[in-house]
């Protein structure tokens, strides 16, 4: 990872400049952490490129890139669907694959991120729900590197004023579902889905934890919508992705427990934006009706939201379910 300061100064009525930081070859997971925390306040340039790496990750990328290209030649797919299929290869990227991006924030926002990382380094082994030890260890290395490289851009804070906060992307405990003026929804989705949603709806809070069975890491994997788990490709996909998991590579297809929280309006805005994006994607051509994970998961949350609000008698709940019905 290499961090450089592509500075621009804005010193106005407030007391802070803004920083533009160029982050080259940083792990995907670091981009997710930065975006989930300050994507709503700053701007994060979209993915420049993702380094496919060497060895197993590169082999998997190469193999599945070829398979998806073959699948997308089927004339039944629309142009938008072909584009969607070509994106499925992102599921094979390891969570620590390199990505380059620019990040725009203020020094105090950067300081807060650093404080959260320092807290993570102190408490990584006990605070976060279900995080595998090797994943946590790798993250510690990334954070140490990040802190070392950004420290020249920071104004040191006195220890009494350092915020006492954990990294919000990692769940510390389980939360109960809630449906009303705000919502809190728990579901399983892939890391790729999570990464996309953090960028897509920065005003909504997302946190995740890894799945566990009998106290050890054991997650399901997500299958691209273009084949089913029991098909020829499905079986091969499961075998390959499990191979990557066994090698400690944590591919983006790993299903994690996601907790999504926000206000009713933010959820509605997200649905509307998705609909616009969907229209742009399928370009109003008729295909086989392929749905990506983002679409399926959002519809599922919307249906749950409606079920939980429309039969509750109060006037406010009726208003909520009416607002939801408009987008359904």
């Amino acid at each position, binding site marked *: 990872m290499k961090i450089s300061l592509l500075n621009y100064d804005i010193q106005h009525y407030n007391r802070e400049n803004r920083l533009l930081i160029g982050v080259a070859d940083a792990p995907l997971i670091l981009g997710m952490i930065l975006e989930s925390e300050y994507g709503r*306040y700053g701007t994060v340039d979209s993915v420049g490129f993702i380094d496919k790496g060497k060895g197993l990750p590169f082999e998997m990328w190469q193999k599945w890139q070829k398979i998806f290209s073959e699948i997308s030649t089927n004339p039944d797919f629309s142009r938008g669907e072909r584009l969607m299929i070509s994106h499925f290869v992102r599921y094979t990227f390891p969570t620590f694959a390199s990505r380059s991006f620019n990040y725009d924030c203020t020094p105090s926002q950067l300081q807060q991120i650093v404080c959260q990382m320092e807290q993570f380094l102190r408490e990584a082994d006990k605070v976060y729900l279900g995080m595998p030890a090797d994943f946590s260890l790798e993250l510690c290395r990334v954070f140490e590197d990040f802190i070392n490289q950004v420290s020249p851009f920071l104004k040191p804070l006195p220890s009494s004023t350092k915020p006492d906060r954990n990294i919000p992307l990692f769940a510390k405990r389980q939360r*109960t579902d809630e449906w009303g003026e*705000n919502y809190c929804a728990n579901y399983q989705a892939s890391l790729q889905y999570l990464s996309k949603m953090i960028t897509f709806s920065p005003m909504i809070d997302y946190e995740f934890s890894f799945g566990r069975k009998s106290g050890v890491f054991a997650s399901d994997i997500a299958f691209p919508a273009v084949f089913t788990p029991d098909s020829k490709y499905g079986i091969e996909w499961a075998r390959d992705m499990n191979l990557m998991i066994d090698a400690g590579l944590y591919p983006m297809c790993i299903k994690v427990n996601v907790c999504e929280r926000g206000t009713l309006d933010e959820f509605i805005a997200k649905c509307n934006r998705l609909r616009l994006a969907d229209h742009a994607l399928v370009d109003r051509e008729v295909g086989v009706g392929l749905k990506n994970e983002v679409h399926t998961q959002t519809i599922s949350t919307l249906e749950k939201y409606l079920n939980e609000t429309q039969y509750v008698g109060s006037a406010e709940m009726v208003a909520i379910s009416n607002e939801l019905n408009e987008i359904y």
Partner: protein
Amino acid sequence: MKVQIVELKKSKNNSSNVVEYTFSDMPIILGTVLANEFRGRVYRESTVSAEGFLDKEMADKWHDVFLSLAGHQKIAGAAIPFIAADESRYALSVFATRATSVVCTSMEMQSFVLKLSAFLKSSSQLTDRMPADFLKKLCQVFSEFLDLIQVSNSDEEVDYLSLFAWRERRDEWGENYCTTFPASLGLLDYCIFNSSSVQEFSFIKEPCSKKFVMRFHVPDIINGTKFADAWREDLEHLVKMGYYPMGLLVNICERGTLDSFINRYKLIQGSSLRRSEIEGQLVINMWARYSNEVFLHLYSLDRDGHSLEDVSDELSNLL
């Protein structure tokens, strides 16, 4: 109002260029609307333009009163000017102006302009949500802004401006919270610039007649003194003149996650302590007091027969 546009970062795609828009003499209410849409990216001058506005004269008059009253109380000397400046802001109109700047992408500004246009188009439906003269002035301010920032026409569906409440919301306490409380426009402005929770407001109405009720925040320093009535009269006079002071009470609906509330609470505690270290005086503003009330409500929560123990545990750690 004038605007200066500086391109900070050019992108391959023009719509995501990062641009800084600096507006001279932007009305406070428009700054609040802007800050609500572009959280953490709106900056403004601390002083309000003094161009002979009635409200500015009144704010200056009350500033002197607060200064002398604070001097007679047991308040540390260094804190007196801060208290006087804070409290006299309540006598400023929401239409008073100050220089304001925003950093955003061209695409985001386009989306904001479309929201303003949508607001203007639907303004006739808003007469039961806000007083007619307030709405008229607001539309003038928005129109002036639209004249400054030209964007290409678009027929895409736009969201509405989230600062204005379109309906009443129910209170909720749990992993997220939603609460409605009467507070001043000054507090609303402060919350929007300093917290990650979501705020919206509506004017207070009489339950039966549906008339708008004009009640005012009375600063602690004059509460219960002979100045309190004079303060109310002055602010009422401002409303009649169509100035709508920051001390006017409105219904604020605030929503956010438990974490955003906890962070805000910690921030208030931290800032009060820092101020106390510097000035030897613990200054707790209205927002901090409100947060204490929310905190107590949240903490004693036992809802629908099942208590939210985890929520309660996190809150008890704040104590």
